[in-house]
């Protein structure tokens, strides 16, 4: 799971009001190279919650991102090094194994072989033997 996805994820348990961002407990992080696309990065910049991204990158072992986000205006003229860092953090870091933790309830959502499980059947868990849902 990439940080671009993580930046969007929010705990969906009923009643939780402050479920973003999910804290990362990283057990295994890998890096996969992705083509650099500055236009896409600029487009994404507007959507991203910067603090959440910095925090998440740090917990994945990448501390290169600056604490303060550049202004939205400044991003257009941002130099390539900054964009490269952003690119690396957003798209090239993969959380392979670990968990994401809801900040409000402490509920852990496992990440297993890069797949992130969020399905919660919050009322009735009496599924059959094939049930693989997190509880």
């Amino acid at each position, binding site marked *: 799971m990439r940080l*671009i996805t993580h930046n969007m994820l929010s705990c969906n348990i009923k009643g939780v009001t402050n479920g973003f961002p999910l804290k990362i407990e990283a057990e295994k992080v890998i890096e996969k190279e992705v083509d650099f696309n500055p236009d896409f990065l600029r487009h994404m910049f507007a*959507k991203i919650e910067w603090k959440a991204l910095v925090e998440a990158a740090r917990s994945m072992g990448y501390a290169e991102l600056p604490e303060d986000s550049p202004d939205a205006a400044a991003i257009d003229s941002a130099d390539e090094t900054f964009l490269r860092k952003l690119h690396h953090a957003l798209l090239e870091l993969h959380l392979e194994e670990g968990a994401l933790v809801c900040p409000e309830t402490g509920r852990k959502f496992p990440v297993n072989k890069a797949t992130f499980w*969020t399905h919660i059947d919050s009322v*009735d*868990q009496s599924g059959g033997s*094939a049930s693989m849902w997190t509880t």
Partner: protein
Amino acid sequence: MYRWYGSLGVWEYPVNRLRTTVACPRDSIITLCSFFRFRSRMIFFFDPTETHSRDRPTQKETHREPTLPIHSPSPLLAVLSFSGFTEALQIHGGLKPMLLYVLRSIRISSRARYPLFSGFISIATSKMRDVKVRANYSKSTDEDEILSVKSTPEIEKKYVHRVYDAIAPHFSSTRFAKWPKVAAFLDSLPSGSVVLDAGCGNGKYLGLNPSCFFIGCDISNPLIKICSDKGQEVLVADAVNLPYREGFGDAAISIAVLHHLSTENRRKSAIEELVRVVKPGGFVLITVWAAEQEDKSLLTKWTPLSPKYVEEWVGPGSPMNSPRVRNNPFFGLESIPETEVSMKEQKAESSPSFGLESIPETDESTREQKAESLPETKDSLGEHKDENSVEELLEAMKMNQQEYFVPWHLPYHRAEVSGASASALASGLAKKDDRKGAVVYNRYYHVFSEGELERLASDVDNAMIVDKFYDKSNWCIVLQKAALNQD
């Protein structure tokens, strides 16, 4: 041998043709009298405090069955321990949710012990009718809506989730053709868009437009595994409750997904979720199977379901084998015999297309409840009752039919690889078809009638319908989320 508690109130439920009393015990004498007065076959005493609470999301244990200290070979008496009626009320937040919980517990614990028990026939005496009807009624309180929306109904667990889990690799191998209309939608998006696919299946559409970034989710873990092995960005999530924050996506798609949701509330919630997760001004494409199929011969391969069957909890065993099915002319691939149709037509008043259960004293309340709980019923069907020909009645009934089991044939060699088929066959979820050399699974579908998708979508406040069309037996719709600063 028995522990006796008294009853504060007594409710009577016909349970699979056994009359059952559910008692909220306080005083043992009253309970004894109730037992004899109602001539019940079973009495359940429940301990609502011995359950997990919905309000504690962090707790790890799954559903706990109420304790049954007595194990009797014939279901004469089953006693659960009880304590703290008032406390129980507080935990569950009211009498109605507590009762619903009890019924669910009884069903579950009884199913485990008495395999013939296949769920409640949800009728009660006049006092209880109000409670039960409200529980099924679609325009009910928030609490009930949350109950029905957030938790997955049994029929979806068995006939959607488990089936797709079992057939995932085979299913994926048959899903490769890209639908031109969807491809056109995706290609029309601006470069660099973030596209969210809810119910992405085998990830067929993820990455279709190489200039966009796709994030897919599906309820089925095996299908998501297939996607993630392809390097796609995916996660396991429920389309009715997306774990995304608001307004992140530039566009969203949900292709052939909503027809697997069994209640109108859930379908509406899924649409609302899709709109919620896109940015203001973002587009959403939804496609669903149409009731009006281009290839009518397909319908003969599908098993129509009575809506009442869908609403009840589905018990163990193959649906084709339970007594309810055997007695109901709807469950069969042959056409409905004319004589039985005309008989049932005379009995039914407002909803002729429903299968009628043979409960002697409760016909009236049954009908009322069914009429209330199924908003899609076309009232105009009542007029058909006066028509002469039975064929027209048959047609009318078939026209109103929107709930189906659609078979999936999983070839034997594929079934062995998947491994889930052994348990599916054992539990009756699937059947063998030696002639075709395949394990046959049934998938639950609620196919959409003309205008239904539109109607659901127009109920979403902050989105407009910008396009709607019928293509290849699917109803399709494109919504646009309202831009900000517009009222």
